[in-house]
């Protein structure tokens, strides 16, 4: 069976090396013996979300995110259908805000977002929230590491993807980070989240092997695992000293 991956707004929301999340998935899926095909779609391109098994989009500038939102709004129905069909979507960085109710920008203007989920977003025009992160999800056996680099805060998240162990959450006084519901997964962590957390990549790979009806084989631990451990150690030393 062929697994189809989509990098949405690959040339717009790819500010911190998010393209590598696709690289991680391609490699891990191939190692399971699955055939993988990746598409890249951006502003104005025709897209049928239901053709894809796994979709991702990353972080962008505040301006770029607004343009992605304008492009995505008329496609809401297709996206919503794809999610209802159980197609996986991973939104990283500030792209998570696209799927909530509304976004208040740095100048205080309120714009409706896709409205697929009930949280809302406030963007600061002057302050960024920057921090290394260690966070834990009930879906994963081990913590995730990463970096948050955003001007936005999320409010009203009922089902966060992570509990923050070190670093920042969805908003200042919120111990939760990210959001998940059904086959939708969102985190404000930026960059190659799945490279830095090979077990998070495995989580999706397991789901996709299940879907393909083939048995999941544990990957042989490579440098990815050693890199993850080195970063986790560095962060714990830093935060827990």
């Amino acid at each position: 069976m062929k697994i189809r991956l989509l990098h949405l707004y690959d040339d717009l929301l790819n500010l911190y090396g998010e393209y590598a999340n696709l690289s991680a998935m391609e490699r891990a899926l191939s190692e399971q013996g699955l055939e993988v095909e990746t598409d890249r779609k951006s502003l104005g391109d025709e897209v049928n979300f239901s053709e894809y098994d796994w979709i991702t989009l990353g972080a962008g500038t505040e301006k770029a995110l607004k343009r992605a939102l304008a492009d995505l709004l008329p496609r809401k129905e297709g996206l919503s259908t794809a999610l209802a069909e159980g197609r996986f979507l991973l939104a990283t960085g500030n792209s998570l805000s696209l799927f909530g109710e509304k976004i208040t920008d740095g100048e205080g203007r309120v714009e409706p977002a896709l409205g697929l989920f009930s949280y809302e977003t406030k963007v600061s025009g002057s302050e960024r929230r920057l921090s290394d992160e260690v966070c834990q999800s009930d879906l994963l056996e081990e913590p995730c590491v990463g970096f948050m680099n955003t001007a936005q805060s999320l409010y009203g998240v009922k089902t966060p993807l992570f509990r923050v162990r070190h670093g920042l959450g969805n908003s200042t006084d919120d111990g939760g980070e990210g959001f998940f519901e059904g086959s939708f997964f969102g985190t404000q962590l930026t960059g190659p989240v799945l490279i830095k957390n090979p077990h998070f990549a495995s989580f999706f790979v397991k789901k996709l092997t299940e879907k393909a009806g083939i048995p999941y084989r544990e990957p042989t631990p490579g440098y990815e695992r050693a890199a993850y451990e080195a970063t986790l150690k560095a962060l714990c030393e830093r935060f827990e000293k």
Partner: protein
Amino acid sequence: MRKFLAIAVCRILHWIGKRIGRGSSLPGQAALKICPDILSRVRLPDTVIAVTGSNGKTSTVEMIAHVLAAAGKRFSYNREGSNQIEGVTALVLCSCTLGGKFKNDILLIETDERYARHTFRYFSPTHYVITNLYRDQLTRNGHPLWVYEAILPSIPKDAVLLLNADDPLVSLFGRGRENTVWFGMERQSFSTEEPTGIYDDGKYCPLCGGKMRYAYRHFHHIGAYACPACGYRREEPAYRITEADLENGFLTINGTDKIPLAFRSLYNAYNVLACYALCVTVGIDRETVVGSIGNYVLKNGRVVNFRLGEALGTLLTSKHENSVSYDQSLRYLVGQKEPCAVCVIVDAVSRKYFTSDVSWLWDIDFGILSAPCVEAVYLTGRYAYDLAVRFSYTDVDKQKLTVLPSIPEAVAAMKSGKQKRIYAVTCFSDRDKLLSLTEILPNKEDATP
């Protein structure tokens, strides 16, 4: 009275700091505490030059200082590491009489791009050079557009703005503005029509968001761009590199002024160009500018030659969290076409702050090292395994890789390696961890060995 006190305290603290061999932000800090608007109370010279941007600030300022000295000007300038308001305050006050009169003809300032608006709250530069805006230290800076917004309020209306015409984001500062001097590079043999980096920050127009078209690019988003949607395009530069001959090591500016390059990288070519444009603009005659840049020896130690056992090494200092800086170093060393070993060290991401973020490795085009002249690659430092993962997604032959987090072990392995030529690529934060294990060689006239 407060003014007098602030100047006196600043100078005393500065003097003490110098005696005990420690520079710090303390003298400036103390002065600002005594008199927060001290910078608006001193009498500054008629020429105040500021240089900012992501890359090349320090090198450009050092080079400008060299030319000013050759032209017989009396000037003060800040050295690297003191480019925020405290450092600039100390620089200014230590160059003032106790009555608050600046003693030299020119004040030359390297300013941190993110804090420029604080530095220039109480005084304004008369000449303001902006070199480029790249993905640089994003864990602090957010992203280039965020930095653009931070610089914008620091630009005074009546200053002469000197801008890199080849950088679409930097050029936006001069849009519809008078008093702007543009500098840029014409198409060269190495210019390409397609983007060459891992990512493309020149894809969309920074003004309207339309798709940009490039007649040519020199690297990344640096080149001749035009936006068909809104008409935003590269300005015709007044100062232009008409020929950049990196192989033979010289530049020609405006078709006539030939300048030898102390370091043969494109990167340095832009620093020379910015320096040339600024110096000519402030009235130094071209002959002096050309002559003095020509005999300029890189002093800031970005390139260091060393010996390791039988091998000759060159350290190319590259900024962590700055993919353009890394790409330039990788391109440079591959361009030398000598069989060599390459050592990449990522141990402390920054010497100024802590982060474990290595996302920036994914923006670096490490695939450049798949060139046949690169016979071995040593990956070392705390984040050696992250480097190894990154390399596993390039065409660099796995057989050539040695992955050792311990820097001494990696250096020992390199020492017993076959290659008699080594290039090391790492940041200021990590380079001494290598250099301390080698024999440092004196810099030659031409930094390229």
